[in-house]
């Protein structure tokens, strides 16, 4: 919604660049002073009755699909080595085309190290073995009878926002490419503690090596503490069975921890006394620091946010009043606050958070804004309940080796030009 002929001087500003106090905006709308909204429209000679209002509609169908006009809302495909290793493929959630916080199942991001396997659920089993009293296996039918819990949680690839992390010049692309490797789902499944307690973990069992049934049998070492506190064997994704690209028929869910550890197509939980240093925790998911040493076992994702509306590749529809909207999250718990700036960080206004604000889940924030048509830079800065704040890109870069693209959580600036174009910039 824009109101191009609004009297900017009469508005109540919360910060520079036109950020508005919400109270002011609502009062203005309620009073009917919003120029443009109540103006009489040009009368039609005859009211148009669209053809769909003059015929019977389509019949009910077994599985609904998005409207045909929305067919362009797709994940962005990233295939770093499409010629020689096409199975190593990723896709990013198009956050600039979505609202709310729950990611539709067909748009959840993917990162496949060896492609998406085609699993026969009748032949898939979960094994629990190693340092347990009773090595056990569970089929899908048996798991259906276990007590289940439901919780909304984000999943974020440790490599999300990798282009901003390493490209010398900011890549001009949408949120699907720039920040699409994070999604948010209402997961339902069996608490991992129930299954582990049935197997009986021995006192020396401190770690669990989880492995998938995909081609590379992707494996990660996970502390028993995490498995027992809030680990979930997820069977359902937003109410329906987990999609093949999310681990059908079952995946491990470790709220707040890097996506790679949330093993898809989970088939084995091997209880050990120590981590086994799998491929992914040896190189692919370790971070080289500025001094040349490396971090390993960096599990939780840091506090982060970005503005989805407006964002790069979008175009403003003229000066006027807008609602800035975006997403914030933290692997350490709940988002405590999100601040928005419309003057490149000179001043900040505290955005409204859409409740309920859930731990380790995407939180939608919004901020009223009067854009007067001047060029400026929009930014969002999240703080989580532990007090952690998103860093500026330069501060993040200073910590790491130039090549590191993992655990990037820096502030995202969007430059709005006088022409209304929105660009990705580094500040």
């Amino acid at each position, binding site marked *: 919604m824009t109101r191009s002929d609004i009297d900017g001087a009469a508005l109540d500003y919360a910060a520079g660049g036109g950020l508005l106090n919400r109270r002011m905006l609502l009062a203005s709308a309620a009073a009917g002073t919003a120029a443009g909204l109540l103006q009489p429209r040009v009368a039609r000679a005859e009211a148009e009755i669209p053809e769909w209002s003059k015929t019977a509609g389509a019949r009910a169908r077994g599985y609904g699909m998005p409207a045909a006009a929305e067919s362009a809302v797709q994940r962005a495909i990233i295939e770093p080595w499409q010629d020689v290793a096409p199975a190593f493929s990723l896709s990013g959630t198009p956050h600039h085309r979505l609202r709310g916080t729950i990611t539709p199942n067909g748009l959840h991001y993917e990162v496949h*190290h060896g492609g998406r396997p085609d699993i026969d659920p009748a032949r898939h089993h979960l094994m629990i073995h190693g340092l347990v009293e009773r090595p056990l296996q569970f089929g899908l039918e048996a798991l259906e009878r276990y007590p289940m819990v439901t919780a909304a949680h984000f999943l974020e690839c440790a490599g999300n926002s990798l282009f901003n992390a390493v490209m010398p010049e900011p890549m001009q692309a949408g949120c699907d490419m720039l920040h699409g490797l994070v999604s948010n789902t209402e997961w339902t499944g069996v608490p991992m503690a129930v299954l582990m307690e*049935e197997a009986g973990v021995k006192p020396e069992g401190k770690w669990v090596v989880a492995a998938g049934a995909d081609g590379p049998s992707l494996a990660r070492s996970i502390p028993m503490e995490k498995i027992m506190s809030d680990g979930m064997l997820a069977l359902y994704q937003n109410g329906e069975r987990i999609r093949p690209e999310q681990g059908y028929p079952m995946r491990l869910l470790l709220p707040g921890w890097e996506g790679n550890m949330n093993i898809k197509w989970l088939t084995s939980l091997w209880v050990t006394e120590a981590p086994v240093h799998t491929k992914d925790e040896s190189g692919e998911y370790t971070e080289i620091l500025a001094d040349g040493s490396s971090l390993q076992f960096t599990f939780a994702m840091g506090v982060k946010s970005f503005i989805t509306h407006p964002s790069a590749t979008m175009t403003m529809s003229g000066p006027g009043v807008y609602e800035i909207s975006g997403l914030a999250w933290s692997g350490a718990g709940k988002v405590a606050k999100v601040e928005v700036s419309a003057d490149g960080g000179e001043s900040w206004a505290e955005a409204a958070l859409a409740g309920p604000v859930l731990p380790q889940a995407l939180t939608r924030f919004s901020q009223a804004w009067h854009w007067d048509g001047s060029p400026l830079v929009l930014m969002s800065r999240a703080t989580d309940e532990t007090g952690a704040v998103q860093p500026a890109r330069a501060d993040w870069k200073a910590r790491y080796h130039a090549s590191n693209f993992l655990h990037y959580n820096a502030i995202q600036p969007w430059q709005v030009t006088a022409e209304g174009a929105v660009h990705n910039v580094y500040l």
Partner: protein
Amino acid sequence: MSIFKLTAAALLLGTAAAHAEGPGLGQPLDAAEIPFYATYVKPDGTGLPAGSGTAAQGSEIYAAKCAACHGATGSEGPVMPPVGPNDVWPKPAGSYWPYATTLFDYIRRAMPLEAPKSLSDDEAYALAAFILERNGVIDAETAMTAETLPQVQMPNHGNFTDVWAKQGAKPW
């Protein structure tokens, strides 16, 4: 402890007990039913099978089955070349990883990408030997076996900070 805290503790215990009450439908799992990829070779060599392979043997297998993705000599890539480090990949398997045992396990379970689990144990040892030799970590004569592989000292071994041990789940 106050009566308030005692009550809270009792409630927590009650919750935990109820939590554990699954229907108990897990079926016994026999050791023979556990495939190799459900475990992982440990840094001390536990889990390594019999077999052996040299860098020379690995060189031939590498040329046939690995070079297309990882490069003619192992350092070109494009896919995460195991020899280096270089500008293509700063974390090569053969010099950056902290333990050589991981090389054998990963090659055996996951490589090549289009036909994982198709290599024999001897071939996986030979490829590990080839990659380590190309990185200058072992000499050309030493065959990799269940005895020799865990003894390989990786050059980057002592260069990691364990974030979980240092600060738990707190993000870095």
